[in-house]
């Protein structure tokens, strides 16, 4: 071998060896530091591929779930393993936020290669929700990022299921994949450097208990095993807002819930769209590769279910029915299951709380175990599972309540005392309007609730909730226009000068704000309550008083 040939042999060999040796180091710097959520929601795209490798290394029976954040928040693999009749079975949760079956397609061959025994697929309104054609930028990013990390050689049959317009945008060719990979690696290297220089963990904020929902540990971390079975969870929002004595819960179950149930993602499109086609493809491919398929229609917050219009999720119901008719599938319909009829099972509208996860384990595990037993051809093991938890159903009625207080008929009318002993609330009548006023109008004002003339109005609250106050007044000037307001004997904090009921604008007669500028409101529980009205300035005139739960209400309209 002459010198030139030797040179080229050593050059090419060392070139290839360098590529092989350096690549894992660079991958470590790049992959580990890819921003959690920069491509997928909550950093769950890349790890799904490492997850399949991880899963396939263990020859024990395995159950793998796919789904959106609902699945991610519902399925506690660790708990399932603890209670399963199969001591050796592994239960993995690979759900990720904002998932669509269509966008999962590039992972399918890796899932099948991992050879799970059972896959559990989420079946719900978002399974069949709308995805634009061609795909939007966000969805393309997701699908392309998965492709970049997928094996170069693999089953690409899913490409036949995809729309032509999407195929033109999918970066599946090697050159395109490399281009895309470098697009993500560049900021990832920067993040690695930030971590080193600033000692800030911008990517992976994982503690030992995996409490941070953004945490995505690396596959060689001690946390990875637990992470794959029970990913970090969202905080329990409902638990946090329920004790607040303001209108947060009402707004949450009101306007916010209305927006949620009207969003495209949380509703089926109502046609056999690309998501549905992809979903069917996934099922068929799994079956073709002797993987048992369990479809689970996960439950939703009962308040949400009550709010849906009659036929809103009919498409999902029909799909559940159709899939149930297929013998090769196991379908578990928990969509409106009474065992999840209490909102304590939920963190919010759709994600399950810890209690909900426990409940799901109790309800779903027996069915999965049964499928697994059949798949593994093991004799049936008789085991008593924990009974489902029983909680009363939540009956949150959200409606716009309006209570009108008859000003002229107070439950109690007390005259003033001491320095105000000559003052009292008396009938007022002008231009057809009637009400009550405090006379004589001597220009007096008081902060002394014990001495001030007093009115009490008692009434029934049918629906608990946050009520806004609207007060109509015909006070003649700014020195004769204010009152103190209270509920059930407690003064409401409306500012240092109570509630003012006069402006120069003669067209205005309704008032809903205190002296502090805030809307006056109170969170009433169901039952009897009394409104307290004390004179602050004599001469004040009250003609009407309304209480409403409707945040958008404008008195006088």
């Amino acid at each position, binding site marked *: 071998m002459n010198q*030139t040939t*030797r*040179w*080229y*042999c*050593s*050059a*090419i*060999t*060392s*070139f*290839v*060896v*360098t*590529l092989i040796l*350096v*690549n894992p180091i*660079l991958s470590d710097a*790049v992959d580990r530091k890819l921003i959690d959520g920069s491509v997928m929601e909550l950093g769950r795209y890349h790890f799904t591929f490492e997850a399949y490798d991880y899963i396939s290394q263990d020859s024990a029976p395995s159950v793998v779930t796919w789904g959106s954040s609902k699945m991610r928040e519902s399925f506690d693999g660790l708990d399932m393993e603890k209670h399963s009749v199969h001591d050796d079975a592994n239960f993995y949760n690979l759900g990720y936020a904002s998932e669509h079956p269509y966008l999962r397609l590039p992972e399918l061959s890796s899932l099948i290669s991992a050879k799970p025994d059972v896959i559990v697929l989420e079946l719900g309104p978002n399974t069949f929700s709308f995805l634009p054609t061609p795909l939007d930028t966000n969805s393309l990013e997701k699908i392309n990022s998965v492709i970049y990390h997928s094996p170069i050689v693999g089953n690409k049959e899913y490409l036949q299921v995809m729309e032509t317009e999407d195929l033109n945008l999918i970066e599946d060719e090697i*050159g395109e994949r*490399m281009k895309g*990979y*470098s*697009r993500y*690696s*560049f*900021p990832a*290297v*920067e993040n690695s*450097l*930030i971590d080193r*220089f600033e000692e800030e963990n911008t990517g992976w904020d994982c503690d030992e208990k995996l409490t941070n929902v953004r945490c995505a540990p690396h596959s060689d971390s001690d946390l990875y095993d637990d992470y794959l079975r029970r990913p970090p969870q969202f905080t329990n929002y409902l638990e946090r807002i329920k004790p607040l004595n303001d209108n947060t819960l009402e707004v949450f179950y009101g306007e916010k819930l209305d927006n949620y149930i009207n969003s495209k993602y949380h509703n089926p499109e109502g046609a056999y769209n690309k998501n549905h086609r992809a979903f069917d493809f996934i099922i068929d491919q799994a079956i073709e590769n002797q993987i048992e398929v369990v479809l689970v229609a996960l439950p939703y917050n009962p308040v949400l279910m009550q709010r849906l219009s009659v036929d809103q999720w009919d498409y999902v119901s029909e799909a559940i029915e159709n899939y149930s008719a297929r013998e090769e599938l196991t379908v578990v319909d928990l969509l409106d299951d009474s065992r999840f009829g209490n909102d304590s099972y939920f963190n919010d509208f759709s994600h399950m709380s810890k209690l909900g996860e426990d409940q799901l384990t109790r309800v779903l595990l027996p069915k999965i175990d049964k499928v697994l037993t059949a798949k593994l051809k093991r004799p049936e093991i008789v085991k008593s599972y924990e009974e489902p938890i029983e909680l009363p159903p939540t009956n949150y009625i959200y409606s716009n309540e309006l209570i009108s207080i008859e000003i002229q008929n107070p439950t109690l009318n007390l005259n003033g005392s001491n320095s105000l002993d000559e003052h009292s609330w008396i009938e007022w009548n002008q231009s057809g309007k009637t009400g009550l006023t405090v006379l004589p109008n001597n220009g007096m004002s008081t902060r002394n609730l014990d001495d001030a003339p007093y009115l009490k109005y008692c009434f029934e609250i049918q629906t608990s909730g946050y009520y806004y106050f609207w007060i109509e007044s015909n006070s003649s000037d700014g020195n004769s226009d204010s009152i103190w307001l209270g509920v059930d004997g407690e003064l409401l904090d409306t500012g240092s000068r109570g509630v003012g009921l006069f402006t120069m604008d003669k067209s205005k007669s309704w008032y809903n704000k205190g002296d502090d500028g805030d809307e006056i409101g109170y969170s009433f529980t169901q039952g009897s309550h009394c409104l307290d009205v004390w004179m602050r300035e004599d001469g004040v005139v009250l003609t009407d008083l309304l209480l409403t739960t409707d945040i958008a209400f404008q008195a006088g309209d």
Partner: protein
Amino acid sequence: MISLDFTSPDYYAWFLPCVIVGVLSFSGGKRRVQIGIILLFSYLFFWLASGWHVILLAISTLMDWTIAKRIFATENQQKKKFLLKLTLAVNLALLAVFKYLDMIIQTYSLVSLKFFWMPDLDPYGLLLPVGISFYTFQTMSYSIDVYRSKYKPYDDFIDFAAYASFFPQLVAGPIVRADDFLEQIKSPLSFDERNFRLAVTFIVYGLVKKIIFANNMAAHVDSIFIEGVDLQNTALVWWGSLCFGIQIYCDFSAYTDIAIGSAIFIGIKLPENFKTPYAARSPQDFWRRWHISLSTWLRDYLYISLGGSRKGLVRLYMALMTTMVLGGLWHGASWNFVLWGFVHGIALIVHRVLSKQKSIRSLFDNKYLKFPVLLTGWFVTQVFVFFTWLIFRVEDWTMLVFAMKGFVGYDSTFDIASGRSVLPNVQYLTFILVMSFIIIHGLSGKYGGFRTKISEAPGWIWGPVMALSLLAMLYLRPDHPTEFIYFRF
């Protein structure tokens, strides 16, 4: 239509391989066929890069070929002069029309604002033909050399046309002298294994400079010198100036490296255009290291023609200043470039005056003071160079004044945190690249350049270097590439 430049995948996927295979293999070793293939591919490259402007190249080529022949053929000195002036006029007219017409009109418009009787003129918005500044200078140098009887004109039109349009250096240099080129193509071109190694090394080196260094610097530069950014922050302006200096060097020298590498594949050697310019210790030294082919062109065809150093000091300074101003103007149709050239001209004159002083020269003779003096010279030169890059980069005059004030610390702040908030998210990587550049540039100057040394290294060193370079290009390139700066000239 495919758009071709040195960072397009198409250039490496099919264009360059076709040239190499065509010239070295399909030509059957016949010289004329080889040159014909080079000519064909050069025009194809130009067509893909600039479309119908290829006609201008053809006009310039044909005209200089014809006129040079006639200059050589005639004995009449006046006729020779006339013919030379004719070719220079046509070439410069091409430049004037396509490059400077709108600048002239805009300047006219500033004047006409003051005088109502002057008619309004609208800019024509002509597209700048790719490489026009380079190939017109190249063909003019040929005509001038023939006029000066430096050599006789090319016998073969194909040879000359290939010289005038040679694709590696057509668009952004280096400017090649006709006799150098002819010398290399008078024998058939053949494959040399060493050339292959050298070529690959040059190209990869150039791509690393462009893709990693230049493009990353560009992201920072583009975020600093824009409307609304506080250019009275000295820290920010220094950083911007440093990044731009690295960007323009890496961008331009990368193009040269790739051009040299591409030419080496087929056995043609192009001249070096840069010699670690940021190691320069004086303005004069800087111009011996920066864009060498242009500065030598200006010296040989402008400075010397204006009298050079042969007609006294005043004439020398005028020649120097004229050369630098026109050299600045060559870079772009903007008064910024004129100012840039002017400032460099001042610096060169000042340097010349100072270096003639006995007191200064004696410092170099003192063995204890020599090094500090050289170091001071280097530092002052580089501060000056990076200061003048502001003029080159910031076209808006108001912004330029702020930037210059910021650079010298006049009426300015020094706020790193505030400066960082303006920059793109990628900062640490860029900082490391800046530090790496400074170290590599310094070492390269000390050891006489790395590219050749790498290509001559044993295979077990060359292989990993190439692998690491390719991996770096894959992992460290920013999302939004920028075009070559000198592509616009």
